[in-house]
């Protein structure tokens, strides 16, 4: 009896602390949304009046009126989704290769992939910039997308995942007259879906939020991604007259990510908990 009552109290305690923590986490976001709904003039006097009406949609209207924003949104969507698709395809193929094929210097190559995990972007960015300049790839979509396709983590993850699938499945499929491609496509790949989801979500989020490389590579406003574009427009409005506008931009930029989170919530939780890798 007392045992189960104890447990109940413990559960209630856990619940209360979780709610508390959750509130702390979302409060800046709620604050942001509220500020975005106030007129800039009002906020200039005081930010505390964000707690009561009148609210206005004028900042949102202003963003819509800025012709650049939709172009940047499109650029971000294009870069992020192509990068995600590319990383998934390349990592799956490479992972299958490392896990299932015999070829010379396989282990050495895999070691190089592992080294790739340890090398920070900062270490290569100057040479990469130089290389892309020489290839005249700056201010192009390939310029924005290509660097993200080198995904050592993806290759590593998929290799481990393919390795964990019993070889007997390949063998059963071989006896079932399946070609090598069919075994990859119909038997093994479907089994890696949890890993694909994890990798896809992380890649998409990282790509969407990336600021540094697009900032370096895209110097023309029409090639900005959303992060770079918004940052660039802040120079004109921020702090002085446009706190509400600034907050509206932040909301606008996070909406797509929020949608991704809501759709893939289950997978994200699993991915973060590390349960996706059996």
């Amino acid at each position, binding site marked *: 009896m007392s045992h189960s009552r104890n447990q109940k109290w413990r559960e209630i305690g856990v619940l209360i602390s979780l709610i508390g923590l959750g509130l702390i986490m979302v409060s800046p976001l709620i604050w942001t949304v509220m500020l975005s709904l106030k007129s800039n003039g009002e906020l200039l006097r005081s930010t505390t009046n964000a707690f009561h009406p009148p609210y206005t949609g004028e900042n949102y209207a202003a963003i819509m009126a800025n012709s650049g924003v939709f172009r940047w949104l499109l650029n971000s969507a294009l870069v992020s989704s192509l990068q995600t698709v590319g990383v998934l395809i390349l990592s799956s193929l490479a992972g299958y290769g490392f896990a299932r094929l015999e070829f010379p210097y396989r282990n050495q190559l895999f070691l190089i992939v592992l080294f790739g995990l340890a090398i920070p972007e900062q270490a290569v960015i100057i040479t990469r910039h130089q290389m892309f300049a020489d290839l005249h790839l700056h201010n192009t979509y390939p310029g924005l997308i290509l660097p993200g396709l080198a995904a050592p983590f993806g290759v590593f993850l998929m290799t481990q995942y393919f390795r964990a699938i019993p070889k007997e499945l390949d063998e059963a499929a071989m006896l079932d007259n*399946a070609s090598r491609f069919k075994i990859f496509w119909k038997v093994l790949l479907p*089994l890696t879906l949890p890993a694909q989801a994890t990798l896809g979500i992380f890649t998409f989020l990282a790509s969407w939020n990336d600021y540094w490389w697009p900032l370096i590579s895209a110097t023309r406003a029409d090639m900005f991604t959303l992060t770079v574009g918004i940052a660039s427009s802040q120079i004109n409005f921020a702090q002085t007259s446009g706190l509400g506008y600034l907050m509206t931009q932040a909301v606008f930029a996070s909406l797509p990510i929020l949608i991704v989170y809501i759709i893939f919530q289950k997978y994200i939780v699993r991915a973060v908990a590390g349960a996706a890798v059996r």
Partner: protein
Amino acid sequence: MSALDIRNVTKAYGPTTVLDDISLTAESNEFIAFLGPSGCGKTTLLRMIAGLETVDSGQIHIGGQRIDELAPGERGVAIVFQHYALYPHMTIRENMAFGLKNIKTSKTEIDARIGEAARILEIEAFLDKKPGQLSGGQKQRVAIGRAIVKKPDIFLFDEPLSNLDAALRMRTRLELAQLRRRLKATMILVTHDQVEAMTLADRIVVIHGRKIQQVGTPMEIYGRPANRFVASFVGSPPMNFLPVTISGAKAVATLSDGTALTTDIANLPESASWELGLRPEHVRVSDTGVSAKVEFVERLGERTLIYARLSDGTAITAEDVGLSRLTMGDEVHLSIDAQAAHLFDADGRGYHAETA
């Protein structure tokens, strides 16, 4: 023309030879068991037949056609893997259909074959479930079903029962025997369980130490083991081996304590030493006979196993009735049925009575 013909096949992994110059034929509709201790190469031999392992030298023929260089799918064999290897993301129906679709079997034919296999194996109820929703025994049936629908010339089973619990194993064994009668196909079963091999197989191939030790019917393997290894490996509890000296034409074997036993074995060659092989059921506790001291008693219900030592210290296993009153330390007499004895020469080769 034999269904399966293995000719001088050798297999090595790196420097270690696993199978050395193996030759074997199986007739059509025959049920063959590969029996041997763990690591003797049973699975390797099976996988070479299936094409999942290359053959270092030698040839394998199925139905008169050389197949050891064909792709696994083109050999007319189906394998039931030890861990089933069902495709986890496909339904049971899709699992069974996969191989047929790959060779462009017509939809109606696929449905008909799956329907029949499902009926035989009583798996109709879960055709639309995924493997993860089935129990081990049910998965086992599905794995067999996936083999059946392909109508192979040869079925290959790698320890199909080893993942099942004792009761289910016995039931599945019976079902395999029935299935075998119904399918009329050549079957090869890999096992290290002698009961499985004895009860299911027409012929047993005992493999050990890179070589085939003996090929024979279960009764030949049990009653006329070719050598000391086969004699000791088959039978539970294992055969007793007693050092003896030999004299006479119908060999008289003399134990170390002087007891002379007249066997039915004739025409023995010269050998530096001899061992008498006696199965425990031929050594019975009685009022007369060799005296021994009981070391351990194992009551199995219908019979009792007595682990004892002869006066010179040789260990011997004997049988007594189920209600045996013997306990540790008792002095007993053992009557030995010398007619049923085997003799093994210094090289381990076995000699048996003509009639046995």
